[in-house]
């Protein structure tokens, strides 16, 4: 590729707008500007220099800020579309058909359309991911393309710049010193600028004072942070990088923790507390009787003994006792267990009394642990009750045989055999909740329901995310870069003493001209420099005057 040679003799890469060495404007565009466009210090943005192969073309596409901003805007609009109606993962139904119905029922024709267009699961759609991916490519390519030349250019800065460069800065001054001996001026400037914590370099009759050059690296650092963050998000999709399981555990149960091999959890108790405040206006409006104060599961975390195989629950080691609450998950070994859900008052035990039907006389009572019933309950001498069959979740008769719908004691039913001194051979009775007992013949005795004990069920979520440290690193780098780029600015002051003793001065900052001017005010007064002008403001005022004259 051909080089551009400047009048000063320096060879600049193709596409350079301002000579790297002396600062003369090179491009026609730059020459025409009254105030130079100082973005990237006029270096050649790499992509704009070559446009030959297909790879170059793709590269150039992603390098463009216009493309980058367009991608940001498209992502923004797409994200907004996803908030019109709830996303599928907030819809508590199981099948696709139910989901379709949900959107139709709740949001009418628009809901149906929303579902059919796939907007109801927008954030995990392939095109949304591609969009974010393209944004990532754009960030990387654009940063490489601009960051490297800018770094080189700032590193190789010359102190002395050509007049045409100086005159085309936004802030300029030209004229004799206002007071005293002009031979000392540069010394005075150096002294003051050093006071203001600028780095000062001199070359003959020229001076360059520079401050916070590192601020220029801010955008590149924050882009790096973003890329690391996106990488972390991407890794999360790979198998094995994160655990997301849930479990229901009843009070008193010990269960293996899904996704957390070798660990067991015991649910000691679940606690639900509510505030006892007077209902507030907001509560009344929403019809909320009581506000929940605390959801808590008291647990014991056990670890399997060293070298034990699956299912071996002997010699488990208690590693932690903890109360899991919302916002206060149980954390152990990189895993975290969260309080997510609960069910209250599941049946735990039932108490029956063996009574004589006619006299009502009681022969004693028995409590049945519904999760661990016994075969036989002895109530006294020659008096006992056997459980012949137990249906924890009685769901009706099928071909005359009682059925159970699940293993959970939601609707327990029993076949009892009651042995009494009167009837030592026993009487059989089928007892279920809310129905009169079914008896083989005419029994003399019956099992009278006395009461129940209940227990609660906790819904817990187990999570582990190996990518979190990557996200933290990415996030910290991003914030650091953002702070560097936002809260510090790169300020430069070029001064030249001309042969007639006059001073020519130019200043530039990438951000915050207000503070740059404050620095200049200080040094102008101290070194008796000619008053600087802001060429942009001056231009505006001239434009205004022009308007007025018409």
């Amino acid at each position, binding site marked *: 590729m051909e080089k551009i040679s400047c009048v000063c003799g320096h060879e600049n890469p193709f596409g350079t707008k301002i000579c790297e060495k002396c600062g003369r404007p090179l491009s026609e565009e730059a020459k025409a500007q009254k105030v130079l466009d100082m973005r990237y210090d006029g270096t050649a943005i790499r992509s704009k220099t070559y446009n030959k192969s297909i790879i170059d073309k793709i590269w150039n596409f992603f390098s463009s800020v216009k493309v980058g901003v367009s991608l940001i805007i498209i992502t923004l609009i797409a994200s907004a579309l996803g908030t019109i109606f709830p996303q599928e993962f907030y819809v508590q139904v199981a099948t696709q058909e139910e989901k379709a119905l949900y959107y139709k029922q709740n949001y009418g024709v628009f809901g149906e359309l929303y579902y059919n267009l796939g907007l109801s699961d927008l*954030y995990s759609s392939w095109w949304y991911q591609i969009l974010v991916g393209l944004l990532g490519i754009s960030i990387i390519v654009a940063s490489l393309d601009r960051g490297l030349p800018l770094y080189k250019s700032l590193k190789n800065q010359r102190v002395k710049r050509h007049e045409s460069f100086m005159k085309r800065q936004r802030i300029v001054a030209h004229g004799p010193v206002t007071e005293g001996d002009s031979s000392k001026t540069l010394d005075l400037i150096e002294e003051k600028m050093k006071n203001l914590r600028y780095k000062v370099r001199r070359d003959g009759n020229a001076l360059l004072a520079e401050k916070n050059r590192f601020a220029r690296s801010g955008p590149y650092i924050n882009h790096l942070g973003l890329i690391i963050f996106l990488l972390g998000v991407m890794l999360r999709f790979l198998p094995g990088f994160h655990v997301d399981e849930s479990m229901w555990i009843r009070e008193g149960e010990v269960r293996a923790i899904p996704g957390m091999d070798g660990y067991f959890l015991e649910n000691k108790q679940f606690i639900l507390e509510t505030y006892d405040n007077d209902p507030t206006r*907001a509560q009344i409006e929403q019809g909320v009787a009581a*506000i929940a104060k605390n959801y808590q599961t008291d647990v014991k975390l056990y670890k399997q003994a060293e070298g034990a195989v699956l299912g071996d629950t002997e010699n488990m080691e208690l590693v932690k006792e903890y109360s899991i609450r919302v916002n*206060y998950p149980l954390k152990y070994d990189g895993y975290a267990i969260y309080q997510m859900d609960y069910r209250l008052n599941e049946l735990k035990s039932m108490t029956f009394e063996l009574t004589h039907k006619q006299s009502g006389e009681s022969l004693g009572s028995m409590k049945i642990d519904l999760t661990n019933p016994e075969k036989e309950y002895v109530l006294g001498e020659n008096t006992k009750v056997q459980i012949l069959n137990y249906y924890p979740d009685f769901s009706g008769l099928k071909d005359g045989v009682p059925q159970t719908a699940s293993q959970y004691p939601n609707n327990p039913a029993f076949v009892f055999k009651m042995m009494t001194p009167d009837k030592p051979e026993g009487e059989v009775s089928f007892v279920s909740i809310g129905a009169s007992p079914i008896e083989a013949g005419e029994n003399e005795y019956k099992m009278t329901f006395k009461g129940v004990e209940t227990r609660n069920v906790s819904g817990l979520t187990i999570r582990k995310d190996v990518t*979190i440290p990557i996200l933290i690193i990415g996030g910290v780098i991003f914030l650091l870069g*953002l702070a560097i780029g936002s809260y510090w600015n790169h300020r430069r002051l070029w001064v030249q003493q001309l042969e007639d003793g006059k001073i020519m001065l130019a200043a530039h900052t990438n951000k915050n*001209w207000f503070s740059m001017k404050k620095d200049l005010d200080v040094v102008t007064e101290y070194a008796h420099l000619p008053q600087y002008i802001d060429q942009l403001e001056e231009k505006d005022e001239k434009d205004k005057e022009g308007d007025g004259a018409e």
Partner: protein
Amino acid sequence: MSLIDISGNLLFIAFFAYIIGTVFIAGSIKRNDGAASRAEKWGKIGIVIAIIGFISQLGYFITRWIYAGHAPVSNMFEFTTAFGMFLVGAFILIYFMYRVTVLGLVALPIAVLFISYATMFPTEVTPLVPSLQSNWLTIHVVTAAIGQSILAISAVAGLVYLLKEVDPKTSSRERFWLEAILYFCVVVIGFVLVTITFRGMGYEAQFTYVNNNGMESEIVYNMPALFGMNESELKTEGVMEPLVEMPAIINAKKLTTVVWSFLVGTILYLLYRFIVRRPICELLHPLVKKVNSHLVDEIGYRSVLIGFPVFTLGALVFAMIWAQEAWGRYWGWDPKEVWALITWLFYAAYLHLRLSKGWEGRKSAWLALIGFAIIIFNLVFVNLVIAGLHSYA
């Protein structure tokens, strides 16, 4: 007097301080032609009053915090009031950096509007549900609100810039939209007036209606029902029947409130136009005539530069930390989260356009106003219409 009463009074003081502060700042500009020193004095008094208001509101915030036992940012009233406070705080900060009083002319009235809007919601201290009982949540909400209010200053600067730069005498698209923004502010006033009026009258109309799932529910309107809920039946005697009935997918109560606000706002606006006979932007134009456009433009940019990192930290980073602590997932695509991301993307686009495409001045000012519109949308619309984990009140 109990702590909560003191707290309420402090907020009241702050509210009036902001109004009086605005008057003084406006006065300082009006007088600019004559006695310059006197004008400066008026401006200084305006700032001092604004600071007094800010301190008073800080007092409200702290006393309410102590009384409630948790940071007062947990419902719509508390959050919106806090936003108004941080907005004034951000204005004071920018004032001490740039010494531009005129920003107060926009910032303080906006804070006043925010606080009045906030008081339309239930103001009682509500206990926190378990998911909100977290220090990270407090840090997240407060930092996000501070970030948003600093970003809002860029919109304030943008509005000042446009009021000066857009010629109010010739009709243009820019003038139309500028006037539309001001009209919208009048609508907010309309909302406040309507709510206060009917609340003062103790208006109440009870309805039963059939909701989405075909279940019968009850609802109480606090304004005459313009729109009725699906298959609604009036239960209160002597009040207005709804004019039109809405299908179940639309919340007719909220629609009624919105339409009432626009109705009253529009009447107010037309009344103004009838009396003054020129657009509001023309009325305000002389107040900002002396403003240095470049400086205001730079303030707008600078406040985005300052606010953007704070916003990122509060609305995204701390939010993710809290979400990780509370739910075990740092991001859940909750509407409020998504809108925070949208705000973030928008200001990222703003910065790139300004840096690389040279969008300064008017374009930048319009972008700042759109950014503020997104923030408001997130605060009002997302909370009240799109329900999610964050739905307050």
